């Protein structure tokens, strides 16, 4: 678009009209002097004054002068253009001229009201009038653009304000989207018991409206949802994205029967009851909630579960144990783990490392609790597969990797066959781990359970000799190799081949398979891992009199579980740190007789991050011994599989398998566990088995093996848990057999008793809130529970938005001298409100924390309000609700009630009358701000009481009033995220942080953003009556827009003068609305005025002056600048 052809209305004849605004202007500005001055300005043909220019006679002055041809342009010097520019433009138009031949000089807000000196005010007024006259001579006729207003309305926040506004608009037949971030609508009003001053029941007047909202055909209610973004849809309407947060309950099918909450094992503090009561993890805030739909609070996967390689749901079974639901706990355990009785004993439990409880005292004994359940149900069964598939899969090795892989494949319907070289299944579980830690019958039972669900295990069948890998590949659909790491690393010192020098695994295998045998009196164990400890403890049980563990670093660097180290020491094993073997002494006949050692010191950290041990020269010494067990690690026995297989290897002698899929370079052959990673813990071997099973399943189904597998394996959760206020309660030690019996192979730990298990389980902090036990899903007849639900984004287009986002109560902890959070019987008003509510946590009884009735109650007004340290404003409702609470407390407890107030502020219909009634009812009123609430007694009658210390300003004394209960009348503050929200909606906040209205008197529900309105306490503290009135006003505003169907936009858009444009493109990226494009043919910028919002940034940046802005052309502004500076 180019410049509109300038129309002229002839030579400028400017009328200047100076408004007295009563005395607002005239008392400061010398009007006559201004008129006299105005008459000297160029083109001015009329200069007049009037008492109120905005009044009808005032406007008529202008219209008459216009109609009669004395003037053709208008300057009004009065108030702010934000106030009356529209009025005078209309007057100009009605006088027969284009409304834009008008300019306003703001001599009230910017002159008379802010200038102390009358002369200076007059000079300033003159300058502004001169500028307006200079400017208006260059005004051009403009047309306002009409833009249609979309008829749909968005209401944000469904407290009483949002409900009222939504109902009004919907009743007028218009479509409303009502968005509420909580699971229910109702807001704060739903928490109240009675309403001031009528004392009618809040629920009785609110819940019918709530129900109406729910069933109204014109209201689309979106609870548990938040506005994500608001973008311009066109020049006037909005495109709004709404996040429908996953409530994990299907809104369409949930019937609100509440069976789920009955079975839910997780209890948390109820937000609706202000933390005075409990709710379940699956909940509805209160019985009359609308919609009557449950919601599951899920913070995400708990840290313990995330840290577990196989993601065993620890919080799930722990919560159920705490509730005594042991059978259900077993079901949760078996969901992820087919070997729980083994894991409960020997897993290194990475879950406990991440346990949040460790931030308080000690992590939970998660494995101990798992073991408790498996001990309780020794005959439990594994779930049968739900499907059957024909394929058979070969698994080499029956260790934890192979067993887990077999189980996972079987669950998917496949038929796994496990080949085991040893006479017993279980791999390292059976041959490496001693029976006093993991009894053999436990392993056998687990393996039998796996056999029961159809897993075939062929023991004494070494692959490589009995059958070859090639054969397996031919006969089976896929192969998994999980042969572990059973070949001992060598010490590489002289004398290693002497009799009675044992490898750790070799020794343990012999004892495990053939039973204990005599080793000798003095045994040395070399190494610091779990195997070293197992070997040492086994050696003691084989009759050795003195067992010493020789380790080249210190205790701190030992890779073994510290608990195992402690256990070994308890049983009598000795430790020799910073000692490394140099040579084994002895001969073939006597066997080993001694170990020559070298003293070490710690040096710089090595690749593992631990300090590397360095030998101290000439520090050799000799330890005499009868046997040596060297446990310094193992490697896989690849040779046993039959030499060169064609499977790629690493330089550490392990199989090379893809990290994500565990597939080897041989298609259909997978490998995992210790034979890939080197020696590692049981749960990681199980993880490898599971991972391989998933890969094999995908491989056989010909599905992408890599997609979507990021969340397999351990990770750290991203959320933090607030543990403040948790009482310290250390982990309950697991009972063990007495030391005297620890020379046998009896299991050392005997497991938790039922009482101990429940006590230990109760230490859980419910990190994830919902523990994912799925009891609710089991009981839900409507099948409404959906754990896989994800947040969804819904997009809508609306023409008007009403914000009714409410307030948050002042946090009374910020004023420590009032004792909230320190003295249990100091309550906030909202807590007291919940107590008075018959559906509340105390069923309407006013009770102290110990359950007794208070005999005296103090209500402290203005907590956080009218106080420069917190909020300087008056919260308006506190006096009112304090009177109400005083009445209710007196009525229900007959206690003496004291109100401590600064001023009683009860203006309103029937408000003062209520106050009078309270005076008559015998409520005490003490005028003065409270200094403190203390439990420090100075007289016998203050003993055991809370003493309120305050100045009584009416009689001029300091008073001490002993009471049983204190209620803090906390003020109202903007929502914590008010600033974030107002940015989203392009509006401003006022000084207190509440949303800013367009005009405090004349436009109290409008904002500076067109089409966005504010209602209720988000605009400022107010009571329900005023909130309802404002809500109605916003509804009216929205309906006006819808009914008219269009808005007229200020024609202040920018335009490009093609003939001046050099095509430099500087303006294009600066436009935030993408209104400018480039015409390559003409090499000029092109303005899309339908997108331009009229900021003028492009105009200011145009180096050639080709871009201009209607109403703000360079010329007009230069005139204005010259004007303000020229004449005065």
């Amino acid at each position, binding site marked *: 678009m180019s410049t509109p052809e300038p129309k002229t209305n002839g030579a400028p004849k400017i009328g200047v009209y100076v408004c007295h605004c009563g005395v607002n202007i005239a008392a400061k500005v010398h009007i006559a002097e201004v008129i006299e001055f105005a008459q000297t300005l160029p083109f001015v043909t009329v200069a007049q004054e009037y008492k109120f220019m905005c009044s009808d006679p005032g406007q008529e002055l202008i219209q008459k002068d216009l109609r009669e041809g004395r003037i053709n342009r208008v300057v009004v010097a009065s108030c702010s253009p934000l106030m009356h520019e529209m009025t005078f433009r209309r007057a100009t138009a009605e006088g027969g001229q284009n409304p834009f031949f008008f300019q306003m000089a703001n001599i009230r807000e910017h002159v008379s009201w802010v200038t102390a000196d009358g002369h200076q005010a007059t000079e300033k007024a003159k300058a502004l009038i001169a500028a307006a006259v200079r400017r208006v001579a260059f005004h051009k006729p403009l047309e306002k653009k009409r833009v249609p207003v979309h008829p749909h309305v968005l209401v944000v926040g469904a407290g009483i304000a949002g409900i009222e506004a939504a109902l009004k608009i919907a009743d007028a037949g218009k479509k409303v989207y009502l968005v509420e971030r909580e699971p229910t609508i109702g807001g704060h009003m739903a928490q109240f018991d009675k309403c001031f001053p009528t004392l009618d029941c809040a629920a009785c007047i609110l819940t019918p409206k709530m129900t109406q909202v729910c069933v109204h055909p014109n209201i689309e209610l979106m609870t548990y949802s938040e506005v994500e973004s608001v973008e311009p849809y066109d020049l006037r309407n909005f495109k709004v994205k709404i996040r429908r947060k996953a409530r994990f309950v299907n809104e369409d099918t949930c019937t609100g029967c509440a069976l789920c909450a009955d079975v839910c094992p997780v209890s948390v503090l109820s937000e609706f009851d202000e933390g005075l009561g409990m709710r379940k993890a699956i909940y509805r805030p209160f019985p009359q909630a609308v919609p009557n739909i449950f919601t599951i609070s899920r913070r995400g996967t708990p840290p313990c579960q995330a840290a577990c390689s196989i993601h065993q749901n620890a919080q799930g079974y722990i919560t159920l144990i705490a509730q005594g639901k042991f059978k259900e706990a077993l079901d949760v355990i078996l969901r992820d783990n087919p070997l729980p009785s083994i894991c409960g004993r020997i897993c290194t439990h990475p879950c406990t490392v991440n346990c949040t409880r460790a931030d308080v005292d000690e992590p939970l004994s998660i494995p101990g609790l798992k073991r408790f359940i498996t001990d309780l149900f020794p005959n439990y069964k594994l779930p049968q597969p739900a499907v059957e598939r024909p394929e058979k899969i070969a698994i080499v090795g029956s260790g934890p990797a192979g067993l887990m892989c077999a189980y996972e494949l079987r669950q998917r319907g496949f038929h796994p066959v496990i080949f085991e070289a040893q006479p017993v299944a279980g791999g390292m579980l059976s041959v490496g781990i001693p029976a006093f830690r993991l009894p053999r019958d436990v392993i056998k039972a687990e393996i039998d359970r796996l056999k029961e669900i159809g897993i075939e295990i062929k023991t004494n069948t070494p692959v490589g000799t009995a059958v070859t890998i090639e054969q397996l590949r031919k006969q089976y659909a896929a192969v998994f190799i999980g042969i572990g790491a059973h070949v001992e690393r060598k010490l590489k010192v002289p004398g290693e081949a002497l009799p009675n020098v044992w490898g750790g695994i070799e020794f343990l295998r012999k004892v495990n398979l053939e039973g204990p045998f005599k080793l000798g009196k003095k045994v040395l164990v070399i190494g610091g891992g779990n195997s070293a400890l197992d070997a040492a403890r086994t050696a003691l049980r084989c009759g050795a009199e003195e067992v010493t563990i020789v380790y080249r670093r210190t205790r701190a660097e030992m890779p073994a579980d510290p608990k195992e180290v402690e256990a070994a020491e308890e049983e009598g094993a000795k430790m020799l740190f910073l000692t490394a073997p140099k040579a084994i002494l002895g001969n073939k006949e006597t066997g080993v007789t001694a170990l020559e050692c070298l003293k070490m010191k710690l040096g710089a950290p090595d690749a593992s991050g631990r300090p590397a041990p360095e030998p101290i020269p000439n520090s050799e010494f000799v330890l005499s011994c009868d046997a040596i067990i060297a446990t310094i690690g193992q490697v896989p026995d690849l040779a046993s599989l039959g030499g060169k297989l064609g499977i790629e290897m690493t330089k550490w002698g392990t199989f090379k398998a893809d990290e994500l899929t565990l597939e080897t370079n041989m298609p259909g052959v997978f490998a995992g566990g210790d034979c890939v990673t080197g020696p590692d813990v049981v749960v990681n071997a199980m993880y490898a088995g599971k991972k391989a099973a998933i890969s094999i399943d995908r491989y056989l189904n010909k599905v992408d093996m890599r997609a979507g597998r990021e969340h397999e394996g351990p990770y750290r959760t991203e959320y933090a848990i607030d543990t403040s206020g948790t009482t310290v309660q250390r982990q309950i030690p697991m009972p063990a057999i007495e030391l005297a019996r620890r020379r046998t192979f009896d299991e050392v730990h005997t497991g938790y008793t039922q009482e101990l298990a429940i006590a230990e389980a109760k230490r859980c902090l419910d990190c994830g809130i919902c523990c994912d036990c799925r009891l609710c899903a089991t009981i839900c007849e409507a099948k409404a529970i959906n754990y896989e639900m994800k947040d969804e984004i819904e997009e809508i287009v609306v023409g008007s938005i009403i914000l009714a986002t409410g307030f948050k109560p002042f946090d009374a902890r910020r004023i420590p001298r009032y004792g909230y959070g320190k003295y249990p019987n100091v309550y906030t008003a909202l807590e007291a409100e919940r107590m008075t509510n018959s559906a509340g946590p105390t069923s309407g009884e006013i009770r102290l924390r110990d359950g007794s009735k208070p005999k005296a109650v103090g209500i402290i007004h203005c907590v956080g309000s009218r106080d420069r340290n917190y909020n300087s404003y008056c919260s308006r409702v506190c006096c009112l609700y304090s009177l109400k609470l005083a009445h209710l407390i007196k009525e229900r407890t007959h206690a003496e009630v004291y109100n401590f107030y600064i001023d009683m502020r009860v203006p309103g219909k029937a408000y003062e009358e209520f106050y009078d009634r309270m005076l008559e009812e015998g409520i005490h009123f003490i005028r003065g701000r409270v200094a403190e609430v203390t439990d420090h007694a100075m007289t016998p009658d203050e003993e055991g009481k809370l003493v309120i210390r305050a100045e009584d300003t009416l009689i001029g004394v300091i008073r001490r009033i002993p009471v049983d209960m204190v209620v803090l009348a906390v003020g109202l503050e903007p929502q914590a995220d008010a600033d974030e929200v107002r940015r989203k909606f392009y509006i401003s906040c006022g000084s207190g942080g509440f949303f800013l209205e367009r005009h405090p008197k004349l436009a109290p529900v409008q904002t500076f953003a067109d089409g966005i309105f504010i209602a209720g306490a988000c605009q400022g503290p107010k009571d329900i009556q005023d909130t309802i009135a404002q809500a109605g006003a916003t509804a009216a505003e929205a309906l006006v827009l819808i009914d008219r169907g269009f808005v007229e936009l200020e024609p202040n858009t920018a335009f490009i003068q093609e003939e001046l444009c050099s095509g430099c493109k500087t303006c294009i990226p600066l436009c935030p609305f993408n209104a400018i494009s480039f015409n390559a043919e003409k090499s000029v910028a092109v303005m899309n005025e339908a997108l331009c919002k009229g900021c003028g940034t492009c105009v200011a940046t145009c180096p050639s002056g*080709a871009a201009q802005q209607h109403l703000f052309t360079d010329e007009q502004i230069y005139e204005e600048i*010259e004007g303000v500076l020229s004449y005065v």
Partner: protein
Amino acid sequence: MSEKSLDLTPQSPSLKGRGSSPPSLGEGAGERSREPRIVAFFCTWCTYTAADLAGMSRMTYAPNARIVRFMCSGRVDPQFVLKAFQEGADGVLIGGCHPGDCHYQAGNYNALRRYTLLKRLLTEMGIEPERLRLEWISASEGDRVQRVMNEMAEKIRQLGPLHLEPAPRHVPAKQLEAVAVGQQGGAR
């Protein structure tokens, strides 16, 4: 002004000036001209509204500044600032919305960039950079308008009047008439 209306070169609204009459302080000049003269460019959404609020709250402040209203501080062309100094202003104040609050998303950031550039330019020209001030004032900060206006007046008073070479003054009425009636200077 006839020169101006014919002058369609891109630099048209330049410091070359737009008239030929000698500088005049007009009526009310004289002794009072020693009072600091400040031009304030305020965006309508935040700072101008804040100035209205200061008025409604009857916060009196130094009367020196004359406010020119813009839709956005992003519309403030650096040449407006230079023009104000040329026309006899001793100080210029630019007021916009706080960062992140711009009604047009980023106009105030552009104002900030130009302000930084202008500061250097003014220094080059021998004008004390303190004569130009940029303030973020939100619609609710009437008290801040009061404070900034007072501070600014005080600062300029300390610096004294700005003495530039005599520059051409305002457009004589006749030429203005020619523009308004005749060419209307659609282009400018």
